[in-house]
């Protein structure tokens, strides 16, 4: 513990330089060849394997693990990339403990699944380290597709469409491609600028033109995109955030966690200001990423407060354990009542809750947490878009077809599916195949 952690208020540079390097390095040590051989030996090569069923992109996991076991990790990577071109990022950020590894029969047998995520990373890192691209583009079709949003869904669709020979223009509202991979997830999950390296590698397929700082509804419009291209794929994610809606939520240093992570990802970590006492409100992955990174920046006390009970949290047990391990205090069944302070936040007042059959109700009992900084992570919302919605997201049928002919949507902006990187990749891929069939008809 350095003295910097005890400076009151919000401050940057609480830690020594080497502590930042250590804190924001790789969360999980990659497997070396020997470790990968040992880990791959544990796969039973199940029939109709449950891990494949559990994977949103349906990667043939037993096959790629067998390819690692026979010392052909490049072939293993090809098996992965065939289904999931962002297999490198997914190996880092997938909640495998809720997907493939939860379904692994060795989880049932011994409570220790095959290390599918780490093996996938071993294979994909090996091939990507070759600095060659494993796919070749088909002869150009002369068709053009606009892909709006260069996050996981958009990148996945763009690659697949380009591979089929279509010319893709990839638009993004931000300066850099990558979407949440670049701006939205914890730095320690994708160190050494992996998100950009992956995009560069993906772009080697050819036929994709990236246009940055092009926001739908501002610099570009759906009508004109639809006029200029043979098809449009919307992968615009959720650009808005839910407001706290509690008294005092406009006080200084009450910010949304998405913006906090965004700034952190794009900055030298020692330049990122963080409170001595940080309160994160929410129970999802974004809340965990914000809370943990606050601790890693040198916040002395970080609490993550979720209004329902622990079993309802969308952050996985592994994520919760990680947060607890990093010294984040997890508080359940408490909802924010007000943020107190004069000018800037000083305390957050919470009321305990009971989650009953009639919904969530307050018990009347309250408590206060000191807070120099309040990070709100209670969900994100879709920006304005001129297609039919299903609830708060874009309505889709089949492989991402929207209400408008020639316009598809996928990823977090589209209804259905979990808001996961891997789900977005699957939806982008499937929409691309559907667009390809549509354009080939």
């Amino acid at each position, binding site marked *: 513990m350095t003295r910097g952690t005890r400076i009151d208020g919000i401050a940057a540079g609480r830690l020594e330089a080497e502590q930042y390097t250590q804190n924001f390095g790789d969360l999980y040590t990659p497997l070396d060849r020997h470790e990968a*051989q*040992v880990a791959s*030996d*544990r796969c*039973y*090569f*199940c*029939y*109709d*394997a*449950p891990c494949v069923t559990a994977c949103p992109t349906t990667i043939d996991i037993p096959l790629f693990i067998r390819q690692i076991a026979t010392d052909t990790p490049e072939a293993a990577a090809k098996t992965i990339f065939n289904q999931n071109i962002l297999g490198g990022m997914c190996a880092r950020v997938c909640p495998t403990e809720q997907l493939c590894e939860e379904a692994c*029969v*060795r989880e*049932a*047998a011994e409570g220790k699944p095959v290390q599918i995520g780490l093996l996938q990373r071993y294979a994909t890192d090996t091939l990507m380290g070759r600095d060659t691209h494993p796919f070749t583009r088909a002869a150009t079709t002369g068709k053009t597709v606009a892909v709006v949003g260069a996050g996981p869904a958009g990148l996945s669709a763009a690659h697949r469409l380009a591979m089929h020979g279509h010319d893709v223009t990839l638009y993004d509202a931000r300066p850099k491609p990558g979407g949440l991979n670049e701006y939205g997830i914890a730095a320690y999950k994708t160190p050494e600028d992996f998100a950009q390296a992956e995009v560069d590698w993906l772009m080697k397929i050819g036929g994709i033109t990236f246009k940055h700082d092009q926001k739908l509804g501002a610099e570009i419009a759906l009508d004109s995109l639809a006029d200029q291209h043979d098809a449009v794929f919307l992968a615009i994610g959720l650009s808005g955030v839910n407001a706290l809606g509690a008294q005092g939520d406009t006080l200084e240093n009450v910010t949304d966690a998405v913006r906090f992570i965004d700034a952190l990802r794009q900055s030298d970590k020692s330049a990122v200001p963080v409170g001595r006492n940080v309160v994160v409100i929410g129970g999802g992955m974004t809340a965990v990423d914000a809370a943990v990174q606050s601790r890693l920046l040198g916040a002395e006390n970080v609490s993550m407060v979720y209004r329902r009970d622990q079993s309802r949290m969308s952050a996985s047990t592994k994520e919760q354990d990680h947060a607890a391990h990093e010294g984040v205090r997890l508080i359940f069944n408490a909802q924010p009542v007000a943020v107190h302070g004069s000018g800037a936040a000083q305390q957050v007042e919470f009321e305990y809750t009971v989650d009953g059959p009639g919904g969530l109700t307050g018990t009347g009992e309250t408590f206060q947490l000191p807070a120099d900084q309040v990070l709100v992570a209670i969900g994100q919302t879709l920006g304005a878009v001129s297609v039919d919605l299903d609830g708060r997201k874009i309505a889709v049928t089949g492989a991402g077809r929207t209400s408008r002919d020639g316009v598809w949507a996928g990823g977090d902006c589209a209804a259905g599916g979990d808001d996961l990187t891997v789900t977005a990749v699957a939806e982008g891929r499937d929409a691309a195949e559907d667009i390809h069939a549509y354009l080939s008809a």
Partner: protein
Amino acid sequence: MADLSINFAGIKSPNPFWLASAPPTDKEYNVRRAFEAGWGGVVWKTLGLDPSVVNVNGPRYGAIYGADRRLLGLNNIELITDRPLETNLQEIKSVKRDYPDRAVVVSLMVPCEEWAWKQILPLVEETGADGVELNFGCPHGMSERGMGAAVGQVPEYIEMVTRWVKQNTRMPCIVKLTPNITDVRLPAEAAHRGGADAVSLINTINSITSVNLDLFAPEPTIDGKGAHGGYCGPAVKPIALNMVAEIGRNPETANLPISGIGGITTWRDAAEFIALGAGSVQVCTAAMTYGFKIVDEMISGLSQWMDEKGHESIDAITGRAIPNCSDWKHLNLNYVAKAKIDQDLCISCGRCFAACEDTSHQAISMSEDRTFEVIDEECVACNLCVNVCPIEDCITMEEMAAGTTDPRTGKVVEEEFADWTTHPNNPAAVAAE
């Protein structure tokens, strides 16, 4: 406490675990350490006449691995001892003097001429060694010079040399057999006729462990070339067990003591060789893989099992499985079993299903929720599902009681024994008495 001591063909040893003639027994330093570790005996690495042989100066071993690089099979192209005869003899004498209770057997390989045996046997006898083992088994190198397996593959030579040895020494004589033959009973019979006090088997099996795909050359590769070697280790155990049993079952050699060799790694392996007629066992690859300390587990495991089962001595268990080693034609065709899957133990990997569906009798069903069940109407009890299941005892073979109906054949399971010799489909069937 069970008595593990043995008297094998007149050679006494505090336990049946001997180190086989091989690199672990090539010199005094190793053998003393082996005895300190608890080994009951050694067969000293094969002596020959001077000038001593030379070994290659590149790799001598190749390996086959199981999961996690567990060594399953080892291949070698090493020859007999490459040290001067006199050095070995002095060391043998020194060790035997200090370990009078341990078995020290000396392996020998000299040309197929009587003068050579007459020359070396008195020298060995003078060391105080307990016996000799004739190396008629080495399949590489020495066999190119008319020794080792080149002798072991010709029963007449075995008989001749064994007779010379028995005529020229008072020491017990063990004849070590090569498995690189078609019927191991013939060389064993030849050894018996020649007066051998015992046989030991198996020596290593001709093998190429792998091919270097960059060099297109067999491994281990010496300057771009490879030669076949001798294969040993856990992978050869089933072959060795069968050969030991063949000799034990053969009336001609039924009472010939056998020293069992071939992939013995644990007490259980040793007990299996003993059950098939071995009066002592010899170990090499396991020691070369894990070191001398493994004998602790062999001794404790064998003792525990013997105590639990009430077996008082090695003699009491030697050959106990021989009466149950039968021929296929005498197996009971009225014994009917069905596979049974314990759903509580099943982890739903589906390997039984893949194996049965793709390669056997389509006798396992798979439901939407991955419940795997045996279809008794199709199950022939082949045991493949048991063998491929990763969970011990999850799938078992359950015998059908006499009087019940086998849903596959529609026939009532009969209590009476009936084998192929009396089966109506057998053109050579004889009517049951």
